[in-house]
């Protein structure tokens, strides 16, 4: 029998960026909060001896322990879904701070176009343009979300500068952009000469020391090149364990319990009464009663916990009805690799979000009348610091082992550069998540089942954006660029990006969305579901600034709900 704990005002599931922000904001206002996090407690003092590529970047020390829980995957409904037995395509977070500990810190606001993608696309190109795409407006506009973006950027201290295509901002970035390096300069010179509009990538690796509104001190970045997949031993990367959690605890109202894996949302008569969790060390079961339940357990588990607990209507891929598990999206990432015979670069130096970007081919910043796709992507050079196990770039046609591989991979370690892109991903009826009928996690719950493949829209976008990336690379002076293979089936093995979205999407109507624009569930008014799970499609940027903004929005909603009750929108 599960032990019943004393009731609390709010229980939060998952202590990443979203959960931490909500905990701090509610704690500040005097609500009693219990934060349940399945992984370890961690903080600055735990990032010692962290410059170990094998342990952190290759063996995923800070990420989800799949022996306890994974998901299953298939490309389409005709296939048998099989477990993702090893991490690969994306790297799920676990432990205090979630993925916010080992992220890069590239911090873009989604475009105004993203939030109203359906209306704006139809308005400009007509209904036929969106045929086959399950896109919908988000139920909130950029202007409405702007104040929350502003708050998020102030918590993280984001270092950045105005961008040509950047949406309106109420305030400048809290700190100036990161350093200009020979690589960012070269990208900017090349794109400028091509008539594009480069700017410094907005970064959560801070350019100068900063103190946020919670009193957290974030140091300035050392450009140490062990950023993505690592914790920052300097406290220079905005990370919930540095920027938010200590303050949340200081309010005296937030109690964070680690090693607490939530297995079910308990509900009755259309309202949640609390959650059930397992202590992953002792295996004891507990029930945490609460007035309000907040899910911030990332895309996968937000979806899984709702499906398993039977809250909200499960999505049906046969006819596109239902909402939980709907509109899973990813990202389309055509890159360009350039080889330089005469020059060597300090490619081994860098920081996760050190870079330069153009948005000339993002969103609807360019005309799509004659194109067979909508949206686009950001194109960037990102000097995050090459590491020797992960980076063995060789010209196309080189074998991947043996003498020639050795010689070329050594030669080009400092003589090749990459341009990365983040192409938007549009939802379609048959890309979705549900529960797997066969495989279980360590607590007996079904694994989440992901059914996903790339679409024609994705392939068109991939080719178009990829060619532009090549053009920039050649303009940067590369002697040659690698051939890019076509975008075929989605493969869960090679790392692509941890920018998964959808499953519990937001919107203006209960028929087509799971949560309203306060992230409150249409079908259970005291359940709030926050994260990239709320994205109705995925944009051409990293997600976290938008997740952070939604977390502030949700916190405001929860506070309001705690006073007034009822549906907020």
């Amino acid at each position: 029998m599960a032990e019943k704990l004393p009731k609390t005002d709010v229980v939060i599931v998952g202590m990443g960026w979203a959960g931490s922000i909500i905990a701090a904001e509610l704690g500040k206002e005097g609500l009693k909060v219990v934060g349940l996090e399945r992984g370890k407690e961690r903080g600055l003092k735990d990032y010692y001896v962290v410059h170990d590529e094998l342990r952190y970047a290759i063996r995923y020390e800070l990420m989800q322990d799949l022996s306890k829980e994974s998901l299953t995957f298939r490309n389409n409904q005709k296939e048998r879904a099989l477990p993702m037995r090893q991490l690969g395509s994306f790297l799920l977070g676990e432990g205090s701070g979630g993925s916010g500990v080992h992220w890069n810190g590239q911090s873009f606001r989604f475009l105004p176009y993203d939030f109203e993608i359906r209306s704006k696309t139809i308005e400009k190109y007509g209904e036929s343009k969106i045929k086959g795409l399950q896109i919908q407006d988000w139920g909130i506009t950029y202007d409405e979300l702007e104040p929350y973006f502003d708050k998020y950027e102030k918590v993280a201290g984001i270092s950045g500068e105005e961008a040509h295509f950047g949406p309106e901002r109420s305030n400048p970035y809290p700190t100036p952009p990161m350093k200009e390096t020979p690589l960012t300069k070269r990208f900017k010179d090349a794109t400028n000469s091509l008539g594009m509009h480069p700017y410094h990538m907005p970064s959560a690796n801070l350019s100068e020391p900063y103190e946020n509104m919670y009193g957290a001190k974030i140091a300035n970045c050392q450009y140490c090149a062990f950023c993505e997949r690592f914790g920052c031993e300097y406290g220079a990367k905005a990370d919930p364990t540095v920027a938010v959690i200590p303050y949340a605890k200081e309010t005296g109202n937030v109690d964070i319990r680690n090693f607490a894996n939530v297995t079910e949302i308990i509900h009755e008569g259309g309202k949640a009464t609390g959650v059930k969790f397992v202590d992953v060390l002792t295996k004891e079961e507990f029930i945490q009663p609460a007035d309000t339940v907040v899910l911030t357990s990332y895309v996968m588990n937000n979806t899984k916990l709702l499906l398993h607990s039977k809250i909200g209507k499960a999505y049906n891929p046969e006819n596109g009805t239902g909402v939980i598990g709907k509109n899973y999206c990813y990202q389309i990432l055509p890159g360009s690799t350039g080889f330089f015979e005469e020059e060597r670069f300090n490619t081994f130096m860098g920081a996760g979000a050190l870079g330069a970007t153009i948005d000339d081919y993002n969103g609807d910043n360019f005309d799509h009348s004659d194109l067979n796709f909508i949206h686009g992507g950001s194109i960037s050079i990102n000097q995050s610091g090459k590491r020797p196990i992960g980076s063995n770039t060789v010209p196309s046609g080189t074998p991947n082992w043996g003498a020639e591989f050795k010689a070329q991979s050594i030669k080009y370690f400092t003589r090749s550069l990459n341009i990365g892109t983040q192409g938007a991903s549009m939802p379609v009826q048959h890309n979705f998540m549900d529960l797997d009928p066969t495989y279980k996690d360590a607590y007996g719950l079904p694994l989440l089942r992901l059914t996903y493949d790339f679409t024609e829209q994705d392939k068109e976008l991939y080719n178009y954006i990829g060619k532009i990336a090549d053009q920039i690379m050649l303009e940067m002076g590369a002697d040659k660029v690698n051939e890019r293979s076509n975008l075929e089936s989605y493969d869960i093995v090679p790392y692509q990006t941890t920018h998964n979205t959808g499953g519990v999407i937001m919107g203006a109507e209960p028929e087509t969305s799971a949560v309203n624009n306060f992230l409150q569930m249409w079908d259970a008014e005291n359940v709030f579901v926050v994260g990239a799970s709320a994205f109705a499609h995925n944009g051409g940027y990293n997600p976290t600034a938008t997740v952070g903004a939604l977390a502030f929005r949700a916190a405001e909603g929860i506070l309001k709900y705690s006073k007034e009750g009822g549906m907020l929108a």
Partner: protein
Amino acid sequence: MAEQHSEKKMSRRRFIRNSGYVAGGLVGGGIIGGLIGANMNDEQEGTNTQGEHQGTSFLQAPLYFTNPEMFAVLVAASERIFPSDDNGPGADELGVAYYIDHSLAGSWGNNAREYMQGPFFPGSNFQGYQSPLKRHEVFDTGIKALQKVANDKHDKNFPDLEGEQQDAILTSFQNDEVELKGVTSKTFFNILRAATIEGVYADPAYGGNINMEGWKMKNYPGHQMSYYDKIESDEFMEIEPQALHSYTK
């Protein structure tokens, strides 16, 4: 020092390669650390007194392999994947086989943080690793098969073949032309390839990348606390590498 170092390793390799001699009973029955150590100790000590990094040599002992013939196959196969050349040492001299051996003995070799529950099905090309075997079992199976193919085809042990013959066998594994039980030869090859590269470039604390020689070839400075003062420079920089060891020393 580098030369002495490689001489020492060469002679040790020759010793291991002569596996018939070992298995013939000269020091039969001992663990391989003893096997190698017994005859090589004098030579090793000699090198040590001339400045060989003490800590490094202590790492050069098998913690997983129990059979010297199989270990010799691993040494030879990884050397073909990352051979010694004008750029510098190959997998053998860099201690890659020890790196792999140590990894097989630990959580990676036992797939400790991976989803290993059944049922098991082969899966498509896009669904990733689906073998019920743990990595150490994959290596047991794969290494044995490399030896068997060498025996069947050339009537010799894998380590005794010419480089091209070894490459041809490895290629047939990579192309999935060899039937193994519980795992495909391609999967085995891919893990072997990845592990070899890890052994070349992982921190020397893991047993490979001896003396940071892997990093030096790539002009990789290893662990540096900061590039704050360097990152804006137009100059290409060659920086003396540092290992994790420097955190604690």
